[in-house]
């Protein structure tokens, strides 16, 4: 049973959220402050920490930084009711798994938590092998799980037996292009989100990638922390289509 540390100074929110997570079969430990959460973290390991950002006393951001030192392997999901754009950007660039804006849909939160618990990896696909490796190393330094590979066909094989949820793929590659990888993923693996990077804008390929659900297109050179931010944004995103269906 997954052990989750839930941190929020809003009692009503914490209690109701814990109840839902427990309903999904998780073991939830509640903390009403960052200080209390750190105490709990020191005494026992958790599989995941879910924390609010704006709290009286220690903020979620500070708690995340301290927790990262204590338990570097533990994924952290943050929530916020406030538009703390700068803080959100900063934590996303420093290895937070995802930030969920309140009020979230409980189902979406639950799916995000499940995804984080699987400890998924990012696959970097680039025909320049050294570039693929250096990108992977930089993302790893931020705290993400990363693998790298230098061709599209290899990438499609790699996702078969590894827990990969994000594919960062170079748009222009010899053999199978990035756009084609995105298209194949769309039909075979809906659980994998594609992010496209490219040295230059190739409209046809970019249109094709975007039309097949690429989450974002980025122009090289992409800083590792920006890439980490986009990965975390992709992981925290609610599925637009299902959100729209619910709205009806």
């Amino acid at each position: 049973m997954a052990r989750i540390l839930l941190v929020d100074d809003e009692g009503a929110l914490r209690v109701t959220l814990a109840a839902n997570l427990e309903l999904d079969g998780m073991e939830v430990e509640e903390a009403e402050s960052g200080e209390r959460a750190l105490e709990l973290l020191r005494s026992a390991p958790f599989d995941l920490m879910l924390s609010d950002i704006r709290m009286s006393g220690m903020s979620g951001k500070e708690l995340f930084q301290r927790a990262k030192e204590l338990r570097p392997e533990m994924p952290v999901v943050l929530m916020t009711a406030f538009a703390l754009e700068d803080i959100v950007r900063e934590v996303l660039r420093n290895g937070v798994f995802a930030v969920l804006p309140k009020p979230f849909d409980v189902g979406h939160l639950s799916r995000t938590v499940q995804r984080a618990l699987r400890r998924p990896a990012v696959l970097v696909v680039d025909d320049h092998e050294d570039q693929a490796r250096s990108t992977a190393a930089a993302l790893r330094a931020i705290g993400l799980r990363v693998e790298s590979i230098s061709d599209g066909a290899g990438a499609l094989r790699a996702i078969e037996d590894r827990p990969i949820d994000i594919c960062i793929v170079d748009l222009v590659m010899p053999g199978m292009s990035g756009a084609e990888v995105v298209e194949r993923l769309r039909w075979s693996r809906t659980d994998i989100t594609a992010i496209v990077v490219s040295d230059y804008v190739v409209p046809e390929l970019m249109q094709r990638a975007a039309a097949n659900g690429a989450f974002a297109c980025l122009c090289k050179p992409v800083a590792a922390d920006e890439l980490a931010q986009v990965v975390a944004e992709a992981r925290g995103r609610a599925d637009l289509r299902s959100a729209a269906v619910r709205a009806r």
Partner: protein
Amino acid sequence: MESRTRELLDEHMRENYRKTSRVFSILLAAQWVFGILLAVVISPRSWAGLASATHVHIYAAVFLGGAITSLPLYLTLTRPESLATRLIVGVAQMLWSALLIHLTGGRIETHFHVFGSLAFLAFYRDWKVLLVATVVVASDHLLRGIFWPESVYGIADPAWWRFLEHAAWVVFEDVVLVFACFRGIDEMRSIARQRTELEKTFAELERTHQIVTRTEKLAAVGQLAASVGHELRNPLTAIRNAHAYISKRVLKSNAASDARTVQFLGLQEREIHACNRIISDLLDFARERPLDLRPCPLRPLIEEAFSVVTARDGVDLVNEVPADLPVPALDKDQFRQVLVNLVQNAVEAMPAGRAGTVRVSAAGSAGDRWRIAVIDDGAGIAPELHARIFEPLFTTKSKGTGLGLAVVATMLKRHGCSISVKSEIGRGTEFAIEIPLQTPSAAAA
């Protein structure tokens, strides 16, 4: 600007004509009275034997003076601004000089009345008046000087050059006065110009003030919206969590057999979602989010927007963006929101029960402007509302926060884009977004 200056100058000149005419009304009447007194004092009665009769000068002063005075007096009172009035006043004033000179028996000192009158006439600041007056006084001098010299010079045989001497002095004064007239008009013109500039500056100031007030109002609305929105989010999340938990529990239990319970749980969820949407709109409007400009293919973006829009039966959504359109750099999330709001509005613009089409088209290329148009064939927007639809809290819908288009305008402004609206009642509406030429750093080059 130039026309306003002319208008002000004109107004100023007319005012000057009015004032000067008023002065002449008094002057002409006073001259008449003075002329009669003069005639009575200098030559009251002449004696012819035992019979005494009123001297002909007195009749001249009363009747001739009356004839000279009455028409200009009437005109200065009734038409003080007209050119005819001024010219007739000029003629009358000179005739009065002539009469007074005659009544005083051609005294040389009375000739000063001519100079004084010319100076008064110069108040009109109109050289034409001085010209006419000069012609009149000169002809009078010339003719009377020839036929009745005593009446002008007081003696029967003046030197032949006396007329020229008098005329020279009059011309000398005229030159000075005409010069003064032109200078006066120049001054009036420069005052008018300054006033025009002042008026313009003032109008600009007023406009700026209005913009500032409006901006402040918007900022206040934004701040209020943001703080209320944020404060509502935590409780709303707790409600949503509690609702999710209760729903799951109830739907598994016996209570699920009660149709009302199930129905109300669904209703609760929808209403919570509606609250959430209002808050999101408010925060979208207030939030200053930094732009994440990245290459963003438009056709798929519009597909995404279509998938989020609440559809309506009979309303078709058509994506007309060519698949090979070049790719601009945009903040994808914010631009999707812009398109969702515009398309949603377009869908809702269809009169109930009528079929319709919402089309989205786009054109542009790197190094050029981009243009995205959202076109519907719905009810249209009345022209007088075009300026107001982008104002926050303005809505024509019975159910709406009035923030949809305000959010659109704010987000586009952050992108440096402009939006324009063309609409015809009953025919439909077109919203056109213009994305400016992108700087090399922003464009995905």
